[in-house]
């Protein structure tokens, strides 16, 4: 950096993009002509100049981002598996219903049929095609889970970071609330809440899930923010006079992105499972097609004990696959953030080269 840049100016914009380049080539001692015995003279001065980087267009930037993502994914097989599985289900949710043969709600005459060529996953007791139901249900299940997870993560980021940053009374009160919500078991609470709400549907379920799942992420973020707030860059930002909102969301939050992503994925797993559980118990809107409702109707009609395994295996497998994919994604994020967990390769000694060098 040139002298003027070093003189006391605090770089307000932390995303300074400078490319440093050696202007004058360094005349190293050994590059100068030698007269044996006469020691070389060391160069005196080397200056650096800041060259602003040229602005890149959107498309090249996207390309770079894609490249970076692909490299990270390639190095991280767990994450790759998770992303593939999640991607598959998202595609099914978006495009699946457009490609169906049967209308999922249509009753047909093939009652309680096992999987066949016409009905790939069989039919229910009322003759509905299960395959169509599963495909259409993907949308509802993913949507409710996603919206709840986003909302819960937003809540936990907000409350967690505010609690962590403002220690003292705010911290005491909010963390007490947080701990109470943590300690009360979430599924029984969700069941009770959902059963008491008089109207059923995805809305109440989302609200119930929001209430029961924000606390975990909030606690994790709180402890991380507590550590961060005594770091130098936060002190520096304070000294410059930044508002707390800016410090929390523009300075500290970018450092905790890995944590927030992991928290989001975990919450997503929880909300999908909880949503399906609530619907299985009949607490959702039973007229909507979703994975949980398929299971509800299966249980209601005593499918299991009459041997109708095709009624509950497909939705269950979908849930398990999606859950596993998300869990792998989470472990991938873990591995990314904590290098100690990465796969170790046993080093192999390069014996031949060694012998030559010491000859």
């Amino acid at each position, binding site marked *: 950096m040139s002298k003027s840049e070093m003189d006391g100016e605090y770089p307000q914009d932390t995303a300074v993009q400078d490319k440093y380049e050696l202007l004058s080539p360094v005349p190293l001692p050994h590059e100068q002509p030698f007269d044996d015995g006469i020691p070389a003279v060391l160069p005196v001065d080397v200056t650096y100049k800041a060259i602003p980087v040229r602005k890149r267009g959107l498309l090249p930037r996207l390309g770079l981002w894609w490249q970076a993502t692909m490299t990270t994914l390639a190095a991280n097989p767990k994450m790759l598996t998770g992303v593939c599985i999640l991607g598959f289900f998202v595609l099914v949710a978006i495009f699946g219903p457009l490609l169906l043969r049967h209308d999922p709600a249509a009753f047909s005459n093939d009652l309680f049929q096992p999987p066949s060529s016409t009905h790939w996953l069989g039919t229910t007791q009322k003759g509905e095609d299960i395959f169509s139901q599963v495909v259409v249900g993907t949308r509802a299940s993913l949507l409710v889970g996603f919206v709840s997870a986003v909302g819960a993560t937003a809540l936990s980021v907000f409350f967690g970071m505010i609690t962590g940053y403002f220690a003292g009374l705010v911290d005491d009160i909010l963390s007490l609330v947080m701990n109470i919500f943590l300690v009360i*078991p979430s*599924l029984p609470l969700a069941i009770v809440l959902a059963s008491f709400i008089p109207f059923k549907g995805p809305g109440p379920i989302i609200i119930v899930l929001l209430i029961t799942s924000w606390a975990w992420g909030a606690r994790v973020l709180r402890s991380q923010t507590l550590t961060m707030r005594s770091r130098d860059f936060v002190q520096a930002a304070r000294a410059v006079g930044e508002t707390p909102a800016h410090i929390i969301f523009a300075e500290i939050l970018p450092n905790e992105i890995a944590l927030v992503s992991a928290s989001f994925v975990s919450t997503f797993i929880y909300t999908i499972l909880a949503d399906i559980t609530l619907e299985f118990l009949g607490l959702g809107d039973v007229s909507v097609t979703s994975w949980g409702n398929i299971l509800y109707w299966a249980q209601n009609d005593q499918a299991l004990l009459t041997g109708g395994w095709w009624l509950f295996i497909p939705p269950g497998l979908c849930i398990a696959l999606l859950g596993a994919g998300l869990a792998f994604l989470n472990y991938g994020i873990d591995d990314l953030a904590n290098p100690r967990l990465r796969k170790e390769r046993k080093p192999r000694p390069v014996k031949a080269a060694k012998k030559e060098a010491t000859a």
Partner: protein
Amino acid sequence: MRHLLRRCGFYLVALWASITLNFLIPRLMPGDPTAALMERFQGQNITENTLHAMREQFGISSEPLGVQYVQYLNNLLHGDLGFSITAYATVSSVIAEHLKWTLGLVGVAAVLSFVLGTLLGVIVAWRRGSLLDSILPPALTFFSAIPYFWMALALLYVLGFTLNLFPVSGGYDVLNQVPGWSWDFTFSVIQHAILPALTIVISSIAGWTIGMRNAMLTTLSEDYVLMAQAKGLSENRVMLSYAARNAILPSITGFAMSLGFIVGGSLLTEIVFSYPGIGLTLFKAVVGLDYALTQGIFLVIVVAVLCANFLSELMYTLLDPRVRQARG
């Protein structure tokens, strides 16, 4: 000691909060729950008194909220949780009848899952990079992603229905056995408890294993483990006393937090297996719109989980001497 007292205080506050939550939830809901109940009882004779009693159960009384609250607390102190409509008995007696089944099942299964899971985690971490390490964590992850009730259904179908290895429902053989301390009865209980317990263990073991594995891997890179190896101690001692003893501390905290989740999962297991615990009772109460019983069971579940949390915090204090210092 001070630390323990502080935690005790917290749990008391949490208890109070859950009681109050329990009180407020039905009273804050829009709509009139008695209307739904009335529909159910249409055609039967309901006297004005019954209606009034029902209304009181839901707290739809004309008295102000504060008075109701005090009455509620008073009732609680006397062990009066209300009257269950579906079971035609007091809520307390219903809960007392079913609670022991759940405690037995969940207690044993949760502890078993924790012990097995952490042991597996220690072994997997010690044999890092081996075949076990490559296979076990992903396999366990897959199993843990399967929701509790689906795992229950699958096990019920495969092992109970198709292969007929285990009974498909009930806590014991209601047709042949009489409850009592006989060997036959105990055997029947165990036989009926295996599938539900298996469900709980399989679904929750992955979390422990992977959590412990990750904690062990972090601990194994610490200097004190290196020093223990440098001391020439046996591999077992290094693994258990130096590495695992430190790595298990976050798992114990995690045990407390996950207990709530396990309780939730066991509810579903009970429903699938028709196991006569409070999970099944809660389900029946919810379906039958029996609000008093629902509230009562919820309260009992919360209290149980709070107690379990407190116990695990106690254990943490015993295991980690650093916590015993009063923290400011």
